[in-house]
């Protein structure tokens, strides 16, 4: 601040009170390393190289935007759009139901508290069942839904079952991790009281812990529904049908009018789901979509159902509806569960595993994988740097405010919704109109899609921030801009950065799906190997992807630590 304000001259603040200084103190090293990493990634993805823009494609881009004025609205196409929307929704619902089964079982088994009540005294040493449960969930989580889909289709054949499992398995593993954290962070006083009065462990958990964890569990479940819709769309792009598939077909045939109709359907579906999920969380008193950076030992805020008596009836109705929707979705999709146990499935699984081993780890291959892994890493960093910067900038107009005009809120929120409703591979195909194939169009596609998700997450962090310091500054006479820069912004930055790093982990997994449409990195190699049926090469690439996921998860965890 170059010009000291009147308030400051009158009442000089001690240095330790500067919110920026205290923010930077803990995270200076992380900040420096992050900047270096972004600079490296930009060079690596070729931001500074020539031959990036394929100017010949602008005509197509113009045609694409011009078509927004005349979307395809023939009755036949509208019916197709409706059917596709139902398919995508049904996949999301079935996948989510499966993930909840896995998530509840896995979440309980990998929670500390479950083993704590069953084996006293609790010791977390390697080899304990707790560690096994945790470890078993790490692998399915590291594989993107699309990869699950591509492998399952090779074993189970063309069946809706593939998309349901491809969505349910990784989502189940993620849900299990979060559920176990919620269970472990729920206050244990009631549980302890029940155990001490001699209740059996099962009863104690059921009556002492679950009821208090339930609002957070449900809130997270509805957040997953939003994710499931996005995931079901992407699975559609690789062939499961539904909106993603139709968007891809229309784009491949360059029928832009159809695309706009389908995009409108995607935006509506996402918008309604997001709104519903937000309403449910409001009723549950758990406003944050997800808590990514709780310090260990910091117990999750116990959500209150007290003031929710009238709305909990609405909640029950909603849950009743959810119970109905799952069987309906199953009837609609008609998955053939018999395939899970058929001899053909076993034969195909055996055949595929035999072909995949040993992985192709020749010297050439390793050199190539290393180079592409670095390129993929760079793609994810560039994507998150762009999404993060714009997310931070857009989050403030996108946050609901008590005073001031409403239009910036609706405008930015609407824009962010469109960005996240359109799946990343479709963004990549659009970027490929005007850019040469390579990592950069892929990075941009991921940036745009993730900006839609990140912008909203940060906006909610802004909405939930403690308003008192801002008000105090304003009442002390600070101009609004100063109050913003000295209270709201520094207070939301740690949570926002935590979100950015958390999203980076997901983005690193998503690099695969933009690779499928020719946008560089390991995903590009994977597509080439899949179309060449090069299974030994494929398993080597998968190992590289695991390694990359592991490194990114670790870096993200380390980087988030000083932000707590």
């Amino acid at each position, binding site marked *: 601040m170059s010009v000291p304000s009147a308030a400051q001259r009158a009442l000089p603040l001690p240095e330790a009170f500067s919110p920026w200084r205290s923010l930077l103190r803990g995270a200076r090293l992380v900040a420096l390393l992050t900047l270096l990493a972004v600079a490296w990634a930009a060079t690596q993805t070729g931001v500074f190289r020539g031959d990036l823009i394929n100017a*010949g494609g602008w005509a197509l881009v113009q045609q694409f935007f011009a078509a927004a004025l005349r979307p395809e609205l023939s009755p036949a196409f509208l019916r197709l759009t409706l059917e596709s929307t139902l398919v995508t929704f049904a996949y999301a619902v079935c996948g989510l*139901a499966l993930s909840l089964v896995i998530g509840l079982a896995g979440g309980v088994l990998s929670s500390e508290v479950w083993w704590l009540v069953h084996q006293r005294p609790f010791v977390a040493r390697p080899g304990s069942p707790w560690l096994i449960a945790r470890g078993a969930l790490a692998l399915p989580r590291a594989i993107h839904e699309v990869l699950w889909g591509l492998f399952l289709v090779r074993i*189970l054949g063309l069946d809706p079952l593939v998309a349901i499992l491809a969505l349910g398995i990784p989502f189940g593993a993620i849900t299990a991790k979060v559920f176990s954290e919620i269970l472990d962070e729920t206050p244990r006083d009631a549980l302890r009281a029940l155990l001490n009065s001699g209740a059996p462990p099962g009863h104690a958990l059921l009556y002492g812990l679950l009821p208090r964890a339930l609002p957070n569990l*449900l809130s997270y479940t509805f957040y997953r529904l939003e994710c499931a819709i996005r995931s079901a769309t992407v699975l559609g792009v690789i062939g499961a049908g539904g909106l993603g*598939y139709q968007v891809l077909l229309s784009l*491949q045939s360059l029928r832009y009018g159809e695309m706009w109709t389908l995009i409108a359907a995607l935006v509506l579906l996402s918008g309604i789901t997001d709104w519903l999920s937000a309403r449910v969380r409001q009723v549950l008193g758990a406003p944050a979509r997800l808590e990514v950076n709780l310090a260990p030992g910091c117990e999750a805020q116990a959500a209150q159902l007290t003031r929710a008596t009238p709305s909990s009836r609405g909640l029950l109705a909603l849950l009743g509806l959810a119970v109905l929707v799952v069987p309906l979705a199953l009837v609609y999709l008609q998955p053939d569960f018999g395939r899970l146990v058929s001899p053909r499935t076993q034969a195909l699984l055996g055949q595929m595993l035999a072909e995949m081993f040993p992985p192709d780890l020749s010297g050439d291959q390793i050199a190539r994988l290393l180079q592409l892994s670095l390129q993929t890493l760079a793609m994810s960093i560039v994507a998150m740097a762009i999404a993060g910067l714009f997310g931070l900038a857009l989050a403030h107009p996108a946050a609901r405010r008590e005073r001031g005009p409403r239009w910036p809120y609706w405008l930015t929120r609407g824009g962010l919704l469109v960005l996240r409703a359109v799946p990343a591979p479709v963004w990549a195909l659009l970027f490929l109109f005007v850019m040469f194939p390579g990592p950069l169009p892929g990075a941009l596609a991921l940036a745009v899609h993730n900006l839609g998700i990140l912008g909203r997450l940060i906006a909610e962090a802004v909405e939930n921030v403690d308003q008192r310091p801002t008000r105090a500054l304003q009442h002390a006479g600070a101009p609004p801009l100063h109050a913003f820069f000295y209270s709201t912004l520094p207070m939301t930055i740690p949570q926002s950065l935590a979100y950015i790093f958390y999203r980076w982990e997901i983005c690193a997994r998503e690099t695969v799906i933009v690779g499928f449409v020719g946008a560089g990195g390991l995903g590009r190699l994977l*597509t080439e190997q899949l*179309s060449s049926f090069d299974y030994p090469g494929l398993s080597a690439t998968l190992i590289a992807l695991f390694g990359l996921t592991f490194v990114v998860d670790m870096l993200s965890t380390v980087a988030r630590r000083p932000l707590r």
Partner: protein
Amino acid sequence: MSVKPKLALVSLALALAACAAPPPAAQPAAPAQSPARPFVISAIPDQDPERLNRLYGKLSDYLKAELGVEVVYRPVTDYAAVVNAFRTGDVDMAWFGGLTGVQARLQVDGAQAILQRDIDEKFRSVFIANVSTGIQPFEDISGLQALKGRTFTFGSESSTSGRLMPQFFMRQAGLSLSDLRGEPGFSGSHDKTIKLVEAGSYEVGALNEQVWEARIKGGEVDTSKVIVIWRTPPYYDYHWVVRPDVEQKFGAGFIERIKRAFMALDATNPAHKEILDLFGAQKFIETKNENYADIEAIGREIGKIK
């Protein structure tokens, strides 16, 4: 105070019921597979999807009448997915390109290439260019050197006429992919290659000659914007490949009956002509696995067959 846990437990019970729901509801779906399983055909998605749906819808109706079994066409999103569906047995017979046909046979023991169109014995690719490039048509393969420093797109990764053979001839002409401007694109289908080159998104592209001729005939190409610069030498391409187990499923001699049904397609019969026209053929003729030995060798050379 006692109300809250009870309420929470009710909701928990409901949530659990929601999770438990899948297995019972699934049961009616499982026996949906009828004892008389249909004969399932598929095809590589090399052209506009709605065109393929029209073509294979008509063909399915024809085969159903000729073979006396239910025939179903399964549209699939990409080339490799058709090969995979053929491998798992979800598809009994598929219309493959040269390369995908070899890939499919290598993965299914005993699968046979049985039929091709008259044009597939001497199939060609065309290299097309946007006229603004000023590239003139040429006769000799060495003319491909004109692609140096140009932007270029293939069709699908697994396309024989849109990727494998063009890349093979470019290599023969001493042109490496790194001589192009930027990375080569993969448009996904022949139709999209035409549209991208016509729009100038890519300066040069390579595609299936038959699709090109059909679009020219249909007046769908603006020839003031895009021209053919070179036709490749001929090679074997598209063909029907059938799984060995169809005779167990549909009776001995079934493969022979399929062949007869296709070869009975007669261009003088208006109903048949419609199907043949959509295939861009005069008639179907027999083929055999050995015809694709060259394609297999080139596939291995380019790395598309391991």
